[in-house]
């Protein structure tokens, strides 16, 4: 098990514990974390699991995939730290990961 924390737009923290190998999107939707929709079920096809990765974690979560780049074109407020949570698989190296959710998913 490892721990990740979602910080919502108003600043509220939502820590969850999930098994290693879970995607960051599932970590949110399986635990009813608000602010992550995941409409396409993890196919990198809807951009409704948009998160901002906290700076100290950016390098460790790795780089975006090509299809993720395409889909991030659709989100409302893209930043350099933007990722789609369905494209991040939680390994032990990401234990303690902190991400922020946007005001709303488009």
């Amino acid at each position: 098990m490892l721990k990740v924390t979602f910080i919502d737009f108003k600043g509220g923290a939502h820590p969850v514990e999930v098994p290693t190998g879970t995607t960051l999107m599932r970590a949110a939707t399986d635990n009813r974390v608000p602010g992550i929709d995941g409409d396409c079920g993890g196919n990198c096809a809807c951009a409704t699991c948009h998160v901002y990765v906290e700076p100290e974690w950016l390098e460790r979560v790795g780089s975006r995939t090509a299809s993720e780049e395409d889909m991030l074109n659709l989100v409302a407020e893209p930043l350099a730290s933007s990722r789609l949570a369905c494209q991040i698989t939680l390994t032990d190296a990401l234990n303690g990961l902190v991400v922020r959710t946007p005001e709303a998913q488009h």
Partner: protein
Amino acid sequence: MNAVSHQSVDIRAAARARVAALPLEELNPADPQEFVDDTVGYIFERLRREDPVHRSHSPIPGIDTYWSVTRYQDIMKVDTSHGIYSSESGITLMDFPPDDEQKLRMFIAMDPPKHDEQRKTVNSIVAPANLNNWQDLIRERTAKVLDSLPRNETFNWVDRVSIELTTYMLATLFDFPVEDRRLLTHWSDMATSNKLTNPDAPEPEVRMAELRKMLEYFTRLWNERVNAPPRTDLVSMLAHGPATRNMGPMEFMGNLVLLIVGGNDTTRNSMTGGLLALHDNPQEMAKLRANPALIDSLVPEIIRWQTPLAYMRRTAVVDTELAGKQIKKGDKLAMWYLSGNRDETAIPQPQRFIVDRERPRQHLSFGFGIHRCVGNRLAELQLKILWEEILRRFKVIEVMGEPTRIRSAFVRGFSHLPVRIPG
């Protein structure tokens, strides 16, 4: 009402038997008559089971041969593989001769990078944060429309509510003169009309003449706004946006059609389809009345159930394989969202309308991938407010007869639904 229902049960049983008896190669889901009769579901049922990626033939010139993609996962694959399956040849099955002016240029029918640039220009107006600004206005207009409905007399829900509300919304988004708002409905209907699929449709010249009037009207608005400081309406955004301000007239026309049809034909038909679905499923209506918080899952369920755009077309740009079928470069495919939304391998109990469904947002009606509906959150907001205001006002809305459905395999919708509100 009972007699009508019984008759329609007979018609449906006959349709199912007819479809079951046809040779597989004769199944053609793009036949508009199947949509008029609401029987296309039987074709999809069979195709999902027996030939999920199906070589289909239409007798309509310009449609001819196409692939029907009917399962949820195959549709997802095509929709997310825009490098293999292009949108440049158009989003409907009808092919026009090259340079035919009937073929409109619009960003939904473009590939990256041009698609991405043009889409971004309109993205922000319907971004969720911006929707808060519209909320009060939508509620006020919805309330006004509902309060003006007749009591104890039968009227057409499509015209009095669905068209009225979506047209009001469009006028707001374009900052279009409200008193002329029915012109938007008229142009939307013109844009989607097609003489080849519907004999009652206007001649192509008449259609283009009407669309040119639309272009003239909007060019006037554009010229006013391009010389004024940028504002938040769609015309101003297009006139000032770096990716859209140099559009030629035909491309402007195409993108207007996209925004007008996209914001009109879709939500309009979900507004009617939702009322009908709740009427046909009284136990679901009872659940909703007992717990109005279910509106949050009701709304995506209505959008799944109705699937107001039955398909989107793609064209293969390379030879490829899909579910064991060899797709050749240049072949066209219909991703039948309507079928994928009834696929039991992806959605539990898909043939049932369930207002408290477990994962209601996992449906195909908005498409997936880079062309996913840009106005999806606005559509959901409009439907949410509509149902909040309906539940607040009316104990019952009686459906007085069968709906009349539109003769189109693309826009899945209604022209008439007789209803009556007692009181």
